[in-house]
């Protein structure tokens, strides 16, 4: 059940990077919100800016190389102009983060237990005398059967799935209300992937936490999310409940992605190929619907300037631009609907 005010409220967020002395826009005017108990999936291909957004929420962009503007409110705290000291107090307490590759994300020279304790020791959520017990309890909570033993081990002694469980234990050590999971299962085997996803979901439900799930995998989105935001070239192109977006995708990009995904229905057919590539940062003109350049039959529309705001096509289902109204795949035009 999704109730209450937003845990995370991002309004008009832009991120610019300084590249060769020039400020280039990687994320353009993104609005997103996560409520307590909600899983929001931010989905897109590489270069879409989804990880850049997560990094901005954690306040982890270098302030000399990146410029974040707009408003990111995390549990009542404005992050965009927060000092480094304020951010340190928020990180891990208001939002915990899980990364893609658990081997490189854990310090190879520190014992597992010490790394989890460190997460608690830098905040005053739990008093010192509880750290050891809580570490064991956290490891149990993420499904590790011999927590005392694992706490004494080093990251390289564990399997990939176990390492990701440790990462999760570390991220929830201070009971954050928001969990940010950046491609948490991309580096794992399929059977382990589903276990880790189920674990994240279980923890989220038990604690009524919000989850910002960043992924490129449409299947993971469909299995995990309550709502979805689809990102392309630094902008949200579609945003709505997971049912709406998967059963009635609107934006040409969402529809193309779903068609490019191999599934039971594609056997014996060619997959839909999205021609071209994501434009480079310097070539992104965010006043236009950038994806339309990759729709060969909509080149005229690709040149039109469109408003920044997304349109509410259906209650709670938002889409960028106007192309969705007329977009049809070539075979649909002929009336051979699949």
């Amino acid at each position, binding site marked *: 059940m999704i109730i209450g005010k937003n845990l995370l409220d991002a309004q008009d967020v832009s991120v610019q990077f300084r590249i060769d002395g020039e400020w280039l826009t990687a994320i353009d005017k993104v609005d997103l919100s996560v409520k307590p108990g909600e899983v929001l999936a931010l989905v897109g291909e590489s270069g879409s800016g989804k990880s850049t957004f997560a990094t901005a929420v954690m306040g982890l962009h270098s302030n000399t190389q990146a410029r974040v503007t707009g408003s990111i409110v995390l549990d009542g705290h404005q992050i965009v102009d927060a000092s480094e000291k304020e951010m340190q107090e928020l990180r891990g307490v208001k939002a915990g983060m899980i990364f893609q590759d658990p081997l490189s994300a854990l310090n190879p020279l520190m014992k597992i237990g010490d790394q989890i304790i460190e997460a608690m020791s*830098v905040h005053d959520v739990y008093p010192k005398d509880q750290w050891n017990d809580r570490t064991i309890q956290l490891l149990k909570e993420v499904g590790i059967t011999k927590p005392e033993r694992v706490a004494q081990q080093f990251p390289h002694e564990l399997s990939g799935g176990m390492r990701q469980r440790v990462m999760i234990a570390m991220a929830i050590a201070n009971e954050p209300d928001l969990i940010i999971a950046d491609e948490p299962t991309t580096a794992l085997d399929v059977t382990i992937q589903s276990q880790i996803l189920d674990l994240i979901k279980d923890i989220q439900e038990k604690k009524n936490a919000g989850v910002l799930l960043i992924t490129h995998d449409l299947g993971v989105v469909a299995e995990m999310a309550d709502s979805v935001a689809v990102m392309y070239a630094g902008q949200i192109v579609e945003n709505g409940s997971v049912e709406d977006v998967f059963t009635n995708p609107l934006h040409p990009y969402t529809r193309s992605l779903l068609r490019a995904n191999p599934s039971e229905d594609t056997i014996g057919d060619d997959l839909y190929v999205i021609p071209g590539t994501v434009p480079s940062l310097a070539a992104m003109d965010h006043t236009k619907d950038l994806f339309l350049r990759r729709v060969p039959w909509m080149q005229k529309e690709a040149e039109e300037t469109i408003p920044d705001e997304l349109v509410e096509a259906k209650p709670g289902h938002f889409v960028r631009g106007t192309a969705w109204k007329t977009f049809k795949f070539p075979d649909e035009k002929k009336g051979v609907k699949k």
Partner: protein
Amino acid sequence: MWKLILKRVLLMIPQLLLMTLLIFAIAKLMPGDPFTGRFSPQLDLSELARLRKEAGLDDPWYVQYFRWIGNALHGHFGDSYVLQKPVVTLMGERLGNTIVLSLFTTVFLYLFGIPMAVASAKNEGKFIDRFWLTFNSITYGVPALVIFLFVLFLFGYTLQWFPTSGSVNIDAEGFVGIWLSKIYHVILPSVTIAALSTVGIFTYLRTGLLDNRNQDFVRTARAKGVPEKQIFWKHNFRNSMLPIAQNFGFQIVAIFSGSIFVEQIFNYPGMGLLYYSSISTRDYAVITALMLFYGFLSLVGAVLSDIILAWVDPRVRIS
């Protein structure tokens, strides 16, 4: 861990064997023998042959080799014919001096190199960073001899702050007095060598610190809310020290070998000076004994490096 150390030490045995064979071969290939120096117009050649036979120089090479090894194991390395003393006695006198010099050099080396790299990495691109970068490229590029002579001239002869030769004052008395005098003698050479040799430690550590800044585990620590200072020392610095720690054994060997050259300049009575003079006087017994010593030292250095790495890196220790 103990198993690893034992295994590594046992691995030294074949290495040692190979090394002694090599040194033996070199000694045999060198022109002349211990009696060459006794040549004189008055010498009876048959007398020389008798001496040679007595010394066992006519035996097959392997008999000589094993005799040599056997003697070495008992601490007999023969006599220096130049100084007319057992080699062991000669080495014993000087080994202590060289150890003191090398130890001080090592301490100063890390005392200079590590803070230099930390200051540089923390201020990347700023004046301090550029200063130490320039300093290290100068000390690396300029011939050490020039600087040694300059230092000796300035602090030794002109300002007379430090002694210019010897390892201890003859009039020093008492345990404390002798040691203070010894330390006083090694400060100038050890500080100079250390200051000139930081380039390796500096470059490794500085690069490591800069690279590790962007490592995933550093990002994880930041996402946990760990303060920057703690991130730097606990995560970044510790991981960046791995190659430095691993190199420690080799560094010591390098310093010991470097002493051959340095002791010469500072006229410091250590192993290096002995080595140098024994070569110029073709004092074979001393040369082979010293080759054996330096060879053994490098093997120990390599073992030391491996053990240190296993000690600091759990990935090596537990596999």
